[in-house]
């Protein structure tokens, strides 16, 4: 089952990035939703079907992994590979912000 789908995954969507951030601590699906809602003051909401789809995908790409627990719902936590991809994605997003600032305000660090 474990195969490397990271390339197939392409760029991280906003929802994926927020889910990965939430999983820097072990959480189950619903707690991830609450975490993202609180972190973004309700700006980003993730519905249960989107959540379930993305969790499956991130597990397949080995960016997160389920952890054994006694709770009813399965909990997940980010992997080293997941952290690396988040760091890479942040660089990409930062570059976009820098480019935009450079044009609009002339204050980007180029």
């Amino acid at each position, binding site marked *: 089952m474990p195969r490397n789908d990271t390339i197939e995954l392409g760029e991280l*969507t*906003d*929802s994926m990035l927020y889910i990965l951030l939430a999983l820097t601590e072990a959480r*189950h*699906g*619903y707690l991830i*939703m609450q975490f993202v809602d609180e972190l973004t003051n309700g700006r980003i*909401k*993730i*519905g*249960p*079907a*989107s*959540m*379930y*789809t*993305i969790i499956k995908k991130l597990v397949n790409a080995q960016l997160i992994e389920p952890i054994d627990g006694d709770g*009813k*719902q*399965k909990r997940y936590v980010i992997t080293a590979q997941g952290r690396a991809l988040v760091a890479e994605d942040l660089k990409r997003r930062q570059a976009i912000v820098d480019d935009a600032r450079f044009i609009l305000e002339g204050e980007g660090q180029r």
Partner: protein
Amino acid sequence: MKRKYMSSWGLAFAEEREMKKLERMAAQGWHLEKFAPLGYTLVEGEPMDVRYSLDYRKQPDEDYFELFAASGWEHVTSTGDEIHVFKGRPDATPLYTDRQTTEEKYGQVERTMGRAALICLLLSLGFVFMLQLDWPQTAEAIILVLQTLVVIGLIFTGLPYLGYLVKRKRLERNE
């Protein structure tokens, strides 16, 4: 308890329209109970302001339904262990909140229908070819019956396939 039947045009074509209609029925006190052949069975109860929404998922695990329940979406009924209908409060977060996963919702069922339709198409072409040959009368009758069944199968897979295809293309274009 009184029950009533509500017909369906097929989820591939009328999902949104029929979920809205189910909501109007619920407001009048008729609640979705289960799928019926080519439609839904509604059961009488208290009028309620609810939202209906459906998801395609092959053999989901328990976590799936628990996640939906925790987010305010109560599981109502399923068919074929693949199509699941949920009932939620008007203020519940929608099942799908981003574009990529919404497209995938339809992509998977589109592929399944497409494969089934292709098989039916090939079979019916095969029967057309077979009927060109000389057969004893009974054999020919059997082939004709099989041919008819396969064509019916083709209609019930081919049309939904096209419906999902159009839906996905529309999603890709706007939004």
